[in-house]
């Protein structure tokens, strides 16, 4: 099938959803549900817009979408309750002998 490209690299809204950036970095953000107060500061600071406060079993806490999280660590550094930790991905846990 022939590849179709848009004139002038013009794109329709939300096309960037198809671009999964989650495999870019070496780390991912993880939220500690116990510490999270659902204050939404991380939501506002995340450059990718991939951390969102959600409700589950009447509890509210931030959830990271690892399909898009580039592991920049902004959320972890702005969290006032130290509820977000950056963890190295399994792939990069190398043992150096």
């Amino acid at each position, binding site marked *: 099938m022939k590849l179709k490209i848009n*004139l*002038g690299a013009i*794109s*329709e*809204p939300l096309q960037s959803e198809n671009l999964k950036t989650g495999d870019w970095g070496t780390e991912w953000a993880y939220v500690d549900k116990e510490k999270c107060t659902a204050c939404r500061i991380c939501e506002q600071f995340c450059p990718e817009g991939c951390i969102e406060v959600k409700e589950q079993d009447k509890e509210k806490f931030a959830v990271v979408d690892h399909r898009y999280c580039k592991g920049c660590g902004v959320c972890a550094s702005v969290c006032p309750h130290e509820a977000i930790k950056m963890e190295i991905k399994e792939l990069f846990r190398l043992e150096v002998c």
Partner: protein
Amino acid sequence: MMRVVRGFYSVAHSVKLCRPNVICAYPITPQTEIVENLAEMYANGELEKCRYITAESEFAAASILVGASATGARTFTATCSQGLILMSEVLFNAAGMRLPIVIVNTNRAVSAPLSIWNDLQDSMALRDAGIIQIYVENNQEAHDAIPQAYRIAEDRRVLLPTMVCMDGYKLTHAYEPIDLLDQSLVDSFLPPYQPAAYLTTKKPLAFGCYAPPHIYMEFRVAMQNAMERAKAVMNEVFREWAEVSGRDWGQHLEVVYPDSRVFVVSMGSIVGLLRKVVEELRKKGYDVGLIKIRTFRPFPVEDLKRSLSNAEKIIVIDRSLSLGHEGNLSIELKSALYGSSANIISMILGLGGRDIPKEFLEKLLEDAILGKESSGFKGVKDFEEVIP
């Protein structure tokens, strides 16, 4: 209607007749009076459905036009030299977004040292931007080039920014009798701009999006294809213009004395002087012709090959230089004629407005024809570089 006007006005009047929707510019010598004329027309209410926006820099002016053009507006700006270079980051984008912005560049030397005078160095710096470049010889040609530039730029087969390059001072400040076009002629030649895609709140779009390695190259190839198609589109537009206006400026090239064995090749206002010089040389018995290059991008390779197929000697007159290599037009011509046995002599003169007197040029060309003059800078004083 024949009127004696300056080069600035010949452009401004023509732009007005093309019914632009957004004009945005930042002043720079020797361009300013073009947009001053347009600002006056705007203030007098002569420009309908038009916004004249003053910008804080050329970078801003070009950016405003990218936005305006993306909404489907017909846009215009004029600049040169440092201003064109400041616009360049934006103009590469405009080309990639396939926005048919029309620019008039009043060719001026680039800094440093600071020079406000004329050569072709500024537009040469934008050679690879994906912008169509048309070079004009006189103010009537500049006047006529504007509606043609819009037709070419806005053609669905092309959709690229188009720049009309006219020599600063030599043309811009010169008074010439100009046959000013009528609104009805321009209206029948240039239909309203019908954008292929445009920004509206009803259908949000993003222009010039991100292209990772697996997709980027295809967009650049698409631009190259548009440039190739532009050659045929320009031929159509040039021919149609000759019919409707009664003024035939030739196609991508204008060839004078096509059967000659020696050719002088150049572009811009110097062609006017070269016409006279070639006539003088022919009176002296030299078999010399002249090729005026009208379109530098897309570069008319096939036309040049055809017109120069029997040439034994080609003298290229350059008024710009790729530092570390040679004259820009020479580079292009040698590449186009690869494999030809013609002797190509490349002369660089007139940089930064250095005067090119007729007698000097005639002696230079005569000596080159006789084999007494070789490639290099001409009209340069003997100098030594010292530390102050």
